[in-house]
């Protein structure tokens, strides 16, 4: 189902190369597709190879998904979350603006015999749904890109408007799932690049990030990530409640460890039993942060779940 011209960015892989890839992988098994992609010299191929790893969707275990639920996966990509969630729910509507990713998902869908997936070619900013149809809406590594898709407006405002739209598509007590970076995550101070492929821009004031991006990338800085408090505020303002933050380590794309931010004892346990042996620098930094109760401001990756506020939960004006 398509609601867009096939004009959205194909990233590192060109249209022509995709045609070649599709002619090679059509009719092949998942294993054969992975072997084919591995054999190709192709920038950006790992996103497609890694999409077959089931652990990418482990954050979904923290959502109360039942086999009667309908799920909307916004920015589904090649199906990292779509395929695993399809095994646990009634139906998944998988939306992406890049047609090639949906064609790739279509092949996976066939291989997995997942008849309950409907791929939809559409923009997250112009969704072809208007009614509250969904029990869960997923945004895995997508929310930060919203600013790039809305022409000219303030990225933060676009993100807020997406949250409001998303809320309207959720059924009463439906849940939103967002996997995203923390703007001030420790990793972004010294080792990880921001979404614009530059270092440190996420932690800069926005005007400085804009100037830096104009110099190096010749365009405005539009891929906004936010702090723990800012995400919380945005979700509350959009009409969500019961907002839960989970820490995902080493990152939400390959989350080997996930736990609720509110379980500070688990953080301590994780610190002593896992981080300590992995990185002394991280260990001492987070040990200090834990001591002052500020670790949530520096954990690099979040999985956030939030429930749509029901009418009875809404605070009346004047209260």
């Amino acid at each position, binding site marked *: 189902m398509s609601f867009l011209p096939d004009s959205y960015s194909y990233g590192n892989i060109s249209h022509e190369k995709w045609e070649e890839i599709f002619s090679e992988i059509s009719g092949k098994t998942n294993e054969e597709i992975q072997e084919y992609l591995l054999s190709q010299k192709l920038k950006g191929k790992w996103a497609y190879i890694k999409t077959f790893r*089931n*652990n990418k*969707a482990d954050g979904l*275990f*923290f959502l109360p998904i039942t086999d009667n639920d309908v799920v909307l996966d916004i920015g589904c990509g090649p199906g990292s979350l779509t395929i695993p969630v399809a*095994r646990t729910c009634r139906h998944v509507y998988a939306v992406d603006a890049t047609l090639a990713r949906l064609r790739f998902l279509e092949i996976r869908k066939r291989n997995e015999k997942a008849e309950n997936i409907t791929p939809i070619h559409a923009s997250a900013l112009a969704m072809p749904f208007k009614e509250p149809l969904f029990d869960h809406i997923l945004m895995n590594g997508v929310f930060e890109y919203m600013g790039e898709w809305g022409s000219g407006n303030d990225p933060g405002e676009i993100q807020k408007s997406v949250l409001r739209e998303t809320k309207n598509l959720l059924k009463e007590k439906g849940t939103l799932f967002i996997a995203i970076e923390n703007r001030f995550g420790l990793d972004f101070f010294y080792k990880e690049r921001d979404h614009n492929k530059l270092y440190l821009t996420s932690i800069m004031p926005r005007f400085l990030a804009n100037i830096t991006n104009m110099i190096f990338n010749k365009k405005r800085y539009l891929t906004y990530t936010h702090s723990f408090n800012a995400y919380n505020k945005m979700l509350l303002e959009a009409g969500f409640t019961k907002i839960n933050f989970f820490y995902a380590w080493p990152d939400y794309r390959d989350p080997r460890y996930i736990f*609720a931010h509110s379980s500070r004892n688990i953080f301590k*346990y994780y610190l002593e039993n896992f981080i300590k*042996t992995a990185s002394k620098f991280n260990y001492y930094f987070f040990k200090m942060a834990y001591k002052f109760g500020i670790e949530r401001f520096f954990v690099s990756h979040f999985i956030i779940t939030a429930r749509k506020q029901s009418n009875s939960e809404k605070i009346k004006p004047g209260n």
Partner: protein
Amino acid sequence: MLLELSTYLDNHWDMLELPQGRDGNLSFFKVAGNSWEEGRINFLVFDEKKCEPLLFVKMMREESKNASIKREYATMQKIAARDELAVFLPLPIEHIKIAGHDVIIQRACHGRRLITSMSRSSFLYFQKDTVRDNFKKALKFVVPFNKYMKNSLDAASFREAITEPLLSFYSSFEPSDSKKARLASILEGVEKEMGGKSFVVPAHGDYSATNIFVEPDDRITVIDWETAMEESLPFLDLFYFMSKYIHNLKVRPKDRWRRVREAYFGNNWFSELIRETVQEYCRLTGLDIELGRAVFPLHFFIKAKIKYGMKGKAPSQLWMNLFEFSVNNSDRCCF
């Protein structure tokens, strides 16, 4: 899924022998697990007011792969039935079904993993005592495990349980006829060294420092029985422990595979420690060191087989290379 699990735990608190007087809600910590097709997902369960986990829970991500969890549970139950071995398991263990998933619930270990004692220093000199001590700790479990669960088999049954599956697996690597014949001869050699009384023992299959907990009272607890085999060969777990340990160290040479080769086929400090450890294992189990020599190359081969089953051919190739090397250099083996 976690909500249902939480409700189950609340309702079966006593059956799971959990401490009375719970302070807070249950909280789940997703830990590690496998990422590949046959992947498992693991959770540590906390009383959120307490610093140590109460339970360890594991399940397959996909319901269709449930058989593997059932197999693991059955193996652990058989081992738990022996008093000498039950002390090494994180008991009690329960097998339940939640939302279509087979789930294993077991006691959480409270000690430290053996691997945490592994230094990141590149100077072996400062780690020798720890390495030696950890090799001794590894023997604590593997000796009774191989001693008390021996199962005698006649020649035909031995071939059916051991020889044929290994020969059949080898064909995935398209070996030449001479290589096939060589493997068959190694397996015959193992039978011969058993002196006409063929036997099998169970094997953990991933007996490494990551899967061994040293409890606060210095007891050893062995976890992660995912790759356990009920019918396997003695010495295998011990050899794998040593190989993986030497592989995991940060010492020179930096090439981990070369380090393993040089440990077994060179004449360095590791070679001496391996010799001592194998001799001690033989003394305690009553097994002949010649049987150990015959089995030795097969531990690389069987690890390749396990890796192949989980991750495919490419990751298993590295272990297969070690197998080939060990067969070609058997006269230089350090023990």
